[in-house]
């Protein structure tokens, strides 16, 4: 076991690679009452086509999310109830890139950890339970289809991407989930829930050796086979189409504006790209930028305006959205500001201020064990140490951010999705 100190963020992380290939990270936090464990697989909504043992397999949209629902079933009952009876608060989520299971507890941490490791690694599906879940997930999909925020997000993905599976809803569709059987679930569990494709991250005042011992005792000895994934080949840099419009029952138009950014492979470049993307958003349209103040005072955006930079394997984007009476005006203003920044450069004082603000918010976010454990896991999959972010951040210059804006914030890389008020068609 290696212990590594990160003085800039005041943390010490214990790291061990088990003989079966599983990486275990423990962020030892003294003085806290609670402990948090996160067990994740590098498998999400976009991993639909993959090669295992020499053969390519195509699976329906929504399998990763379906699996997440079904994993809590055990041969003896339900792991959620077992954890709750032990005083733990458990949950799980599926994103485009990963699936994660976690709990938080103040007592019986190792009992709960054993339950977590065991229900995630031992599948138990029956045709009846899969049938029943199809109904439940079908309801969830219908609910999400009524949600304008969700619809506008996927409309933006369709604007920006031609074929990358980030376009496909994580939960799938009614049609796609109808094709999922217990056989599909067993096969995908076998392919992706292997020690070498997973990671265990823990935060709290717990003994790292004991965490590793629990993982060694419960998880399989074999690392599992390597998996190739196919996202349909590299995307062109430009957006697939400029605009998409939907009609739904909303009181004001809601929109998502996006710019297709350059994806990166992994390693420290991944972290650097993420931080540059965040800074580019702040400089271009963040709450202390001149553009934000102007749009706000002109009533083109309101307090619901939000923005961020997202990075996935094979895809990256800047996105901003909210409510607006005239989303096209917002888009045109952002493009014009992007052009100005690309030409004149980033104001040195604004850059310094915004950098300070982003840095402070990132350090403060380490108070959250959930955030720490998820970030450690995602960074592990990207091949970078998360707690190295202060050093990477220091090296970013106004010219770096200007180059991002010049490259990405252009009409050909821009997509706009709008949900307008009216009867749904």
């Amino acid at each position, binding site marked *: 076991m290696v212990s590594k100190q990160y003085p800039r963020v005041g943390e010490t992380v214990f790291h061990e690679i088990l003989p079966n290939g599983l990486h275990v990270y423990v962020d030892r936090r003294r003085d806290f009452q609670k402990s948090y464990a996160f067990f994740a697989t590098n498998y999400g909504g976009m991993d639909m086509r993959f090669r295992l043992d020499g053969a390519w397999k195509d699976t329906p949209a929504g399998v990763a999310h379906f699996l997440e629902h079904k994993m809590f079933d055990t041969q003896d009952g339900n792991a959620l109830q077992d954890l709750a009876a032990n005083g733990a608060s458990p949950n799980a989520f599926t994103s485009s890139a990963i699936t994660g299971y976690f709990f938080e507890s103040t007592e019986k941490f190792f009992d709960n950890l054993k339950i977590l490791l065991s229900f995630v690694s031992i599948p138990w599906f029956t045709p009846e339970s899969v049938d029943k879940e199809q109904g439940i997930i079908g309801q969830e999909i219908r609910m999400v289809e009524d949600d304008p925020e969700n619809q506008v997000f996927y409309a933006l993905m369709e604007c920006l991407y031609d074929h990358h599976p980030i376009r496909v809803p994580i939960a799938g569709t009614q049609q796609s989930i109808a094709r999922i059987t217990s056989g599909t679930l067993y096969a995908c569990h076998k392919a992706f829930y292997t020690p070498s494709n997973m990671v265990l991250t823990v935060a709290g005042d717990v003994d790292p050796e004991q965490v590793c011992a629990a993982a060694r005792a419960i998880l399989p000895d074999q690392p599992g086979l390597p998996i190739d994934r196919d996202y349909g080949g590299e995307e062109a840099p430009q957006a697939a189409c400029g605009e998409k419009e939907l009609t739904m029952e909303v009181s004001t138009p809601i929109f998502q504006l996006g710019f297709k950014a350059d994806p990166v492979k992994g390693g420290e470049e991944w972290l650097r790209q993420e931080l540059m993307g965040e800074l580019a958003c702040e400089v271009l349209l963040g709450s202390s930028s001149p553009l934000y103040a102007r749009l706000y005072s002109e009533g083109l955006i309101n307090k619901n305006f939000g923005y961020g930079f997202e990075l996935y394997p094979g895809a990256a984007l800047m996105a901003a959205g909210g409510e607006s009476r005239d989303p096209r005006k917002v888009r045109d203003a952002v493009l014009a500001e992007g052009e100005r920044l690309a030409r004149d450069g980033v104001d040195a004082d604004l850059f310094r*201020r915004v950098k*300070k603000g982003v*840095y402070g918010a990132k350090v403060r976010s380490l108070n959250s064990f959930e955030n720490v454990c998820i970030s450690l896991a995602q960074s592990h999959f990207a091949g970078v140490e998360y707690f190295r972010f202060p050093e990477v951040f220091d090296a970013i210059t106004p010219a770096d951010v200007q180059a991002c804006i010049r490259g990405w914030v252009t009409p050909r890389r821009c997509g706009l999705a709008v949900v307008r008020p009216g009867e749904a068609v």
Partner: protein
Amino acid sequence: MKVTQLTLRPGIQLTAVQTRKFKSSTLAVRFLLPLSEEEASLNALVPMVLRRGTAEHPDLESLSAALDELYGGSLEPLVRKKGETQCVGFAGSFLDDAYALEGERVLEPAAALLAEVLLRPYTQDGAFCPDYTRQEKDNLINRIRAQVNDKRQYAQIRVVEEMCGEEPFGVDKLGSEARARTIDAGQLWAQYQKLLHCARVELYYCGSAEAERVQAAFAPIVDGLPQGEARMGVLRPAKREAPRHPRRVEESLDVTQGKLAMGFRTGCDAWDEGYPALALVNAVYGGTTTSKLFLNVRERLSLCYYASSGLMKYKDVMLVSSGVEFDKVGQAEGEILSQLYKCQTGDVTDDELEWARRSVVSTLLTTLDAQSRLEDYWLGQAAAGLTEGPEELARRVEQVTRAEVVTAAQNLIPDTVYFLKGRD
């Protein structure tokens, strides 16, 4: 974790929690006043207008820039209700000094910015800027109106309003739309002066600095507040008996799912010795996912989409809240009361009691792990004039006996039943 409570001047107190476990520090200042129909909206509006600009930073953009300089700190208006005390002011989160890039101090400039927002507002002609006042008054009215959007919460606000109509507790923390509409700039300025002169002031800090340094950092606020006036004292709400037959109120709105909210008198509040037993009964009855309401009314009988209970810590009131089909409301109400009867007759398994105890203790202990929950906990205690911390209360919960739980349950009496149904 070391907690220091100091009286800095009569009616002005500081609670300072010293710990190195967080990356950030929390700073807060709140004015405490008796909750009243007449003044609630005025008090709620004051911090919203103060947050728009100061003499030195006259607009949102320049205030945002000042917060960026403090490593992206936050400073948010706060309006809360603790028993029959209304608390208004600001809470902020800042990077702890240990993580500042050039070893500079963050606490002192953050406290100075807080003092500026609180004491040196942007004014025009000797009062609040009319534009800011008008815009924030609209925002306040929109917030009060938006309460109806969340039907679950709305039903709870309504049952309290009906149940405590003759007590200050019946007033919402934001006041009423009708009263908010009548506010003008002159009234608001006068109320701001009243807060400065007469309200009790509670300062709060949680972070790595020791109490002496915190006290010095807050000095600009303490020295800037008017001298020599009597500030209001601690207020404990009066208790009431439930009516012989519960009051019943029904309303119709455009909803597809009914909301049933029931108010109970508890005969007990945070000042009483018996409070830990009441906290435990609430957890056994409806406070957790292993509670009687959750496992029976929701899971076993599928009568409700949700069914849970919650305590008003500083008032003798418990609320049960549930979402139910219109035609199942009678059945649901019957089952909610029959589960209460089980608590009152001691029909509680050892498992149920222990699950509940673990949940209450865990919730109290994890308060120590979250700065925002800790700030809220100590605000409640300060408003009540109580000094017990979460660990001590958790220790008392560990000691509660089965007999005490049953006795506390027997004091729960239905007072008001509110049902929100759909339009015909």
